[in-house]
């Protein structure tokens, strides 16, 4: 297996990943879109290769066998690596328009102000002719501790080193970062004036010659104020770079609502993606403080080391496509959350990438994809009406619950531990993901005398296979519709979401479902 690790990016986080990995002896390739990288020359040894001005185009293969196609200086390049770490920098969009302002010599971005203060090559004379500086942050859009820290640090320097009067206008001051509450107090002591808005926002006018006038009602003093700053500093929104967003597509990685290259899913803590062998660290995955970026770099290095310790995946338990039955409809290819299906002469499953969620097998229209122990026949064998039960005067329904083993099955165990009484006729069938539940499974349950069937999935956004629970929802909905059409009680089929720590809720759902089934009576499909 190829252990070589590709690092994408040239910022501090990518450098930190590289430096961490260099100590392990794992071969590294760093690919950057421009020609700068913050590593010193001595590091460029046999273990490290730097490919500057390189842009990725495509990626095939899986953990241990990734093949990257890229363009470097207008020439195509092919690269074979075993693991990939995405550590591209984020970028910033200025928020002038949010405050109804236009950039000018006295209306500047936060980054511009930071450059003035910290970059020795930047002209500082603009600070010599001014007295009042206003920072506008987080009152149209919510801000983040990263931006709040920069605002406060800049304001502190302006107060202390330049003897200027600074004002910070904000809604919710974001102090949920290390040392930020102390910094907030320090800026106040240094003379920074904070004006916080709750519902109202200030009127901001940009007049002739770009003079700024800010008028507002102050909630603390109940008075109207007017501020005429000599300089207005506007905050920025941190967004993923367009290149990083493109990488998500190239690698088939789920992104979050803001376009960062990591699904907003707890199963991806902290640097994982839906693809085995591809990690994402630092500003590519979220808005992170410097310390958190360093931590990400270490986690990415750790993840690579862990994979390198050599796990060999056995084919037997993973999904398998039976070529004779496959019609290349590509349903499995589209649905696989782990991108574990390859299209060669035959459609094949990559054992290294397959997580055995069962979505492909459940949705293959030809039954060509199979997974040991998940076939409807095998599941059917698990479902057994308890024949040893005492004959009851009252109807005691037989209920089959297909439970995701990460969530609902754990919740069932917790419910028992907590002392909840579960329906006597409840049988739980654990599945690796609710997305593995197919028509065949549900009918196998009914065929095995179930009076009711529950499919218990993870909550939306909490499925390890990203969409497995959504697919389960679709399957159930379709069968329910079929039931209504043929006059079978659709209430016999229920889908609910649960998490592993919801023991009480599991008991409640099972209880209510039993009540429902008792009301409807025994299933007509029941054999006696």
């Amino acid at each position, binding site marked *: 297996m190829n252990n070589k690790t590709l690092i994408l990016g040239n910022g501090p986080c990518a450098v930190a990943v590289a430096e961490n990995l260099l100590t392990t002896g794992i071969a590294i390739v760093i690919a950057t879109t421009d020609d700068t990288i913050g590593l010193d020359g001595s590091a460029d040894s046999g273990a490290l290769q730097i490919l500057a001005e390189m842009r990725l185009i495509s990626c095939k293969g899986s953990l241990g066998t990734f093949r990257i196609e890229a363009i470097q200086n207008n020439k195509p390049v092919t690269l074979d690596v075993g693991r990939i770490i995405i550590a591209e920098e984020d970028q910033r969009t200025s928020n002038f328009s949010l405050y109804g302002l236009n950039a000018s010599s006295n209306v500047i971005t936060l980054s511009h102000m930071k450059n003035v203060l910290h970059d020795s090559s930047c002209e500082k004379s603009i600070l010599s002719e001014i007295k009042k500086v206003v920072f506008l942050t987080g009152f149209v859009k919510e801000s983040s501790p990263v931006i709040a820290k920069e605002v406060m640090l800049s304001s502190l320097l302006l107060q202390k080193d330049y003897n200027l009067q600074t004002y910070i206008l904000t809604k919710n001051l974001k102090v949920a970062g290390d040392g930020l509450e102390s910094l907030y107090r320090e800026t106040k002591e240094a003379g920074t004036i904070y004006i916080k808005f709750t519902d109202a926002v200030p009127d901001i006018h940009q007049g002739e010659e770009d003079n700024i006038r800010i008028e507002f009602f102050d*909630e603390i003093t109940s008075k109207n104020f007017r501020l005429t700053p000599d300089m207005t500093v506007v905050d920025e929104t941190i967004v993923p770079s367009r290149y990083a967003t493109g990488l998500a597509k190239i690698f088939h990685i789920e992104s979050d609502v803001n376009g960062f290259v990591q699904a907003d899913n707890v199963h991806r803590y902290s640097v994982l993606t839906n693809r085995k062998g591809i990690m994402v660290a630092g500003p590519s995955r979220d808005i992170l403080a410097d310390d958190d970026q360093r*931590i990400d770099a270490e*986690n990415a290095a750790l993840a690579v*080391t862990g994979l390198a310790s050599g796990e060999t995946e056995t084919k037997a338990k993973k999904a398998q496509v039976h070529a004779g039955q496959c019609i290349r409809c590509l349903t499995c290819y589209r649905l696989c959350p782990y991108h574990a299906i390859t299209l060669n002469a035959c459609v094949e499953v990559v054992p290294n990438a397959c997580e055995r969620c069962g979505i492909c097998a459940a949705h293959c229209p030809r039954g060509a994809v199979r997974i040991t122990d998940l076939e409807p026949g095998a599941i059917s064998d698990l479902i057994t009406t308890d024949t040893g039960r005492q004959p009851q005067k009252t109807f005691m329904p037989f209920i089959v619950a297909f439970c995701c083993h990460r969530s609902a099955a*754990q919740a069932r165990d917790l419910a028992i*531990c907590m002392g909840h009484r579960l329906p006597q006729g409840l049988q739980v069938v654990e599945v690796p993901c609710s997305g593995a539940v197919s028509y065949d499974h549900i009918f196998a349950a009914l065929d095995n005398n179930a009076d009711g069937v529950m499919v218990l999935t993870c*909550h939306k956004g*909490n499925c390890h296979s990203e969409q497995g629970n959504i697919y389960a929802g679709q399957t159930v909905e379709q069968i329910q519709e079929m039931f209504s059409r043929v006059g079978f009680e659709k209430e016999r089929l229920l889908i609910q979401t649960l998490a592993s*720590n919801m023991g009480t809720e599991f008991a409640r759902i099972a209880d209510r479902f039993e009540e429902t089934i008792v009301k409807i009576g025994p299933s007509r499909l029941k054999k006696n």
Partner: protein
Amino acid sequence: MADKNVLIIGGGVAGLAAAVELADLDIQVELIEKSNFLGGHAIGYACKAINNTCVKCGACMVEEKLQSAVSHPNIKILTGSQVQNISKNHRFTASIRQEPLVIDREKCTNCGLCLDRCPVDRTILQGFSKNNHPFYAVNKEKCLYFKDQSCTICKDECPETAIDLDKKASEHTIEAGAVLIATGFQPFNPKDKPYGYGRFKNVVTGLDLERMLKQFGRVKKPSGNKLLQKIAFIQCVGSRDAKLNHLWCSKVCCGSALRMARLIKERQPKTEITFFYMDVQTFGKDFEQFYREAREDIRMIRAIPGDFYEMDDQRLKVNFVDNPTHETMEEVFDLVVLSVGITPCEDIGPMSRMFKIGPDEFGFLKTDDKGMLVSKNGVFTAGTVQGPMSIPETIAGAGSAVWKIIKYIDGHELRFEKVTV
């Protein structure tokens, strides 16, 4: 690998996450936990999903880490245990005292009969997870047997003869190549605040509410099952407080409180919820939308109430200054939830003495920015012992500590001085 094993002190999120990472790398882990149950504070947290959608509080990940840790062959766990002293001569030698495990873990089947039969309230303690095994423990502070040997009901009635009230404490010696301190945090005790916590029945902490929601799936009035209509959440209790010299934001309380508030709104829609705050902190990747929706259901008041009075019907009269009018308002609530902050845990004193590490200005135990100060000696920290952090941050921090630990035990020089993040 005997010389590469790691001693982890603390079985909360950080300790468990680090243990699993190390064990997966084939490093032996000795994990000791002071309390009877693994999982730390967070194992008691409720799932706060609303509208069938995960809100990314991370509580279920604690369950997952715990499950992986207890079933991992490379992890040895001692509960009810504390380090008595530790010495270092290349390797660490720690002597551990383990309180008697009155309920035998091999024999106990978690049937719960001991809890049912025990005559004294809150004497048989219950765990929070199915991976807390045994799921029950005897609270020696309250147990009559430990007071005057007057009661042996649990022992007599246990169908598995799993209870031995005479069991003695045991001593263990653990040798380890490195130590990870992951002793967590102390929730701020609001007793000294004018909020009547501990005296007024219907004043609870955010942690109490988390556990209540996990156990019952809904919020109940501690004073009884009377109508519960109005709930107030008070933020920043023990955080951002200059009088206490608590000059930090606890980071997690806005997220916990607003998520719980929305969960209650969903499950008990008739409840009216008021949220008293200073600044709402950003949490989660879709905070903007979450916060917008929260404001539709929840009344937000930017003020922190001065004090409360308990009325005859045990409801609470809350005084606060209404910002727009500057008037002192008085309002009655059925339940008040105090979002208590994260404060340094009580073990920091002994830990800093034992390992000769000074706490930071606020009393947390931190390695310096580059992880050098402490880790040079083979002692590492992770989790909220370092300061406030969320569950995802804690898991990431545990990974970072594990990375430093493997560098240390492999004898690699740490190269952090070159990192310029």
